[in-house]
């Protein structure tokens, strides 16, 4: 029996198309996996289902009746609950208060404590979690326990369709096992679950059927038993990858631009050593949270390093003395993985954002020459193909891809000799990606050094000369691309300790 059906759902945000024709059918008592890359539209789809966003087109039905929620309250009334990637509990209130939030049994506004206890115990009973007592503050619970509370909240609201958005992303292995047991129990009680993940093995373990989302469209659906992992990967990635990456002559010079030795910045980064040569693109693969980002931040001086040394253009210095102004003056440039949080100042103009690291190019005695600033920015915008009306527009008015080009334009304007790029193409459209690859390749051709951190393996294989893998805070030696296969990179990323017991772990961590 179909409990939830989506047909041709579409949604755009300004210039970006998040969803463009999604069909999905959820049956009673099944766990349905929704798989797709980052940016494929999974989270947008969940928000539409949960009533936080409205689709621009398409229809939905719940148990045969039309469903068009205008707010999360509508969704709850129809029995749909969303369990967020970042949990949405109120940390200062107790477990009971969180479970019953919005459903408190009350008479004339007075909380009926006895009924509240009964009601929350009734749902909590299913889980036998020792840490969870009704009067404990949620802030004192572990992440896994909080997730149980969140699920209890869904059950207390009598949800029979539960949407789980990457529920295991912050869990330890034992907790994952518990969660899966819990999901199976829910399933046997006739509750239907949409389970979002990009860990294929995990999906195989828990889900019955799947739908693959790619670039905002549902591209395939079926039973998991009838499809192989590589078929799924093809469906997830299945885009013309051939012409996405520029062809480049891979012949880096011997001259070392940046030498990093024994760098550590606990707790995330244990050890990293590498050489970045002129004209080289060095890729860093690894799982999220493996210490990749921390390594780049420690090099640039944004996070304090504990030990290690750098050598930039032959000059050596200690890692813990590193700071952004110092590294900028040494010709290092940094592109953050968190564009809105750290990369770009949304209310400032494109011109200010582009020239921020090197105002000296368009100023004298501390005074800006605004027309020079404008001209220089226009030149960069043309160079990167930025779509905008003029350089004085606030960065906020641009699409994500164009904002990212502005951040990259800043590094070019700074004339950085060593580019530290952390996820340079995350969450942007394919057209912008191709242009950014083009610019990165040109930088390498100009004998600059590029360090590129990425979760997206095709990108690393398409662009890099050498790849090193970060695993549990340790960086493997860099090897040429020809010596790696994607499977080897993944194995290195999870530490290579393969035992039968780690099957779940391994699967969870494979970010394809």
């Amino acid at each position: 029996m179909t409990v939830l059906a989506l047909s041709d759902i579409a949604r755009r945000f300004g210039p970006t198309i998040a969803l463009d024709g999604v069909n999905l059918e959820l049956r009673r008592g099944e766990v349905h996996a929704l798989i797709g890359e980052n940016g494929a539209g999974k989270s947008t789809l969940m928000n539409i289902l949960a009533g936080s966003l409205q689709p621009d087109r398409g229809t939905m039905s719940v148990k045969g009746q039309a469903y068009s929620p205008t707010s999360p309250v509508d969704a709850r009334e129809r029995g749909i609950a969303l369990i967020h990637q970042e949990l949405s509990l109120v940390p200062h209130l107790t477990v009971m208060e969180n479970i019953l939030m919005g459903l408190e049994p009350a008479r004339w506004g007075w909380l009926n404590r006895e009924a509240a206890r009964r009601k929350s115990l009734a749902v909590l009973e299913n889980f036998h979690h020792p840490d969870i007592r009704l009067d404990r503050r949620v802030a004192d619970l572990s992440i896994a326990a909080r997730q149980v509370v969140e699920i209890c909240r869904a059950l207390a609201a009598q949800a029979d369709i539960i949407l789980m958005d990457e529920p295991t992303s912050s869990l330890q292995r034992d907790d994952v096992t518990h969660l899966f047991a819990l999901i199976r129990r829910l399933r046997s009680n006739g509750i239907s679950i949409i389970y979002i993940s990009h860990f294929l093995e995990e999906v195989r373990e828990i889900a019955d059927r799947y739908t693959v989302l790619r670039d905002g469209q549902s591209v395939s659906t079926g039973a998991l038993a009838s499809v192989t992992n590589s078929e799924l990967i093809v469906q997830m990635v299945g885009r013309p990858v051939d012409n996405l990456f520029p062809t480049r002559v891979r012949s880096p010079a011997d001259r070392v631009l940046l030498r990093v030795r024994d760098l550590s910045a606990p707790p995330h980064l244990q050890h990293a050593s590498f050489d970045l040569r002129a004209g080289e693109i060095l890729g860093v693969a690894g799982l999220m949270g493996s210490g990749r980002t921390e390594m780049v931040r420690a090099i640039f001086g944004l996070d304090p390093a504990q030990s290690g040394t750098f050598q930039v253009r032959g000059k050596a210095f200690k890692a813990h003395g590193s700071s952004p102004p110092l590294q900028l003056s040494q010709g290092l440039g940094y592109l953050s993985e968190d564009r809105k949080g750290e990369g770009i100042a949304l209310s400032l103009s494109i011109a200010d954002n582009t020239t921020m690291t090197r105002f000296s190019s368009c100023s004298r005695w501390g005074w800006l020459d605004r027309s020079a600033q404008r001209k220089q920015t226009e030149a960069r915008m043309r160079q990167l193909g930025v779509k905008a009306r003029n350089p004085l527009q606030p960065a906020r008015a641009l699409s994500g891809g164009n904002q990212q080009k502005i951040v990259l334009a800043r590094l070019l304007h700074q004339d950085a000799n060593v580019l530290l790029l952390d996820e340079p193409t995350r969450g942007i459209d394919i057209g912008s990606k191709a242009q950014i690859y083009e610019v990165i390749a040109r930088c390498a051709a100009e004998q600059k050094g590029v360090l590129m951190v990425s979760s997206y393996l095709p990108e690393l294989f398409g662009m890099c000369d050498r790849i090193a893998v970060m695993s549990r805070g340790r960086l493997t030696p860099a090897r040429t691309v020809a010596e790696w296969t994607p499977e080897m990179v993944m194995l290195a990323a999870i530490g290579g300790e393969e035992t039968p017991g780690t099957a779940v772990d391994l699967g969870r961590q494979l970010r394809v």
Partner: protein
Amino acid sequence: MVAETKTERESTRSTFQNVWLARLGPFIGLFLVIAVFALLTESPARYLSPFNLRIVLAQTVTVALGAIGMTMIIVSGGIDLSVGSSIALSGVVTALMLRAGYPPIVSVVTGMFVGGLVGFVNGTVITRLRVVPFIATLGMLGIARGAAKWIAGQQTVNVPQTWVNELAVTFPTPSWLLLAPGVWIALLLSIMTAVILRNTIFGRHVFALGSNEAAALACGIPVRRLKVWIYSLAGLYFGLAGVTQMSRLRQGDPTVAVGAELDVIAAVVIGGGTLSGGEGSILGSMIGALIMAFLRNGCQQMGWPNYIQEIIIGGIIVIAVAIDRFRHSRSQT
């Protein structure tokens, strides 16, 4: 592709409108306030007379000087609640210096530097002790007020007759000045600061800091030092505001300007500054200060009681910010 460029163009057009709405908004507000009172009053000629204009401008000097400093702080994403106390403290110090027989210029400059010192302490507490600006300056509000009362011996400090007393008078001598010297000083300083915020690296760093502190840090801007500078420079303006306040009263009063910080913040916010930082302009803040001054003056002309003024100004602040939010929500879709 065609669709994308089209929406891109649409969004740029709406940004363009928004920019103009933001720039013109305070002017329209000022015009409306003046027009409404001109129509309400029985003698519009008197309300709109140069005579009345002089009164309004002379009354605005203190708030306007404070608003220049506050604009820098608010644009950088900070806040300063100690303005009123800082005004009282620097006024008292200036008055004590004058009474002790120091030359007027030395007394005035010292008064300014007392304000600057208060700002420096605020900036240092915020950056070194990592106390959020709201709390750090809330503490300073009490400390500076207490210090002012202490050094003044809990009394007003009378000052001898010098040119300092003429800074904010309605009828200046020589009469060819037309407006009080303080008005000209405020005008000059506001133009200067506006140009600095717009055209210097320091100014762009202030905006970058308020717009996105993490990005400013990643771009190598010395964020801590910059903050100390901003609070110290703004403190100089608050110190000067204290001097003009003393000049109007012709005595140093340690209990004066209680709540002045709220007037100053209101001027900046009415003028388009946002408390989350990254936005605001000196011109807007000056218009904001004028809007409040014309409102006060208009209410007085109408013979309305003080509480009516308070209610109206409260309402104007909320409306100004609501319009600003509306503009933002439109530009973000």
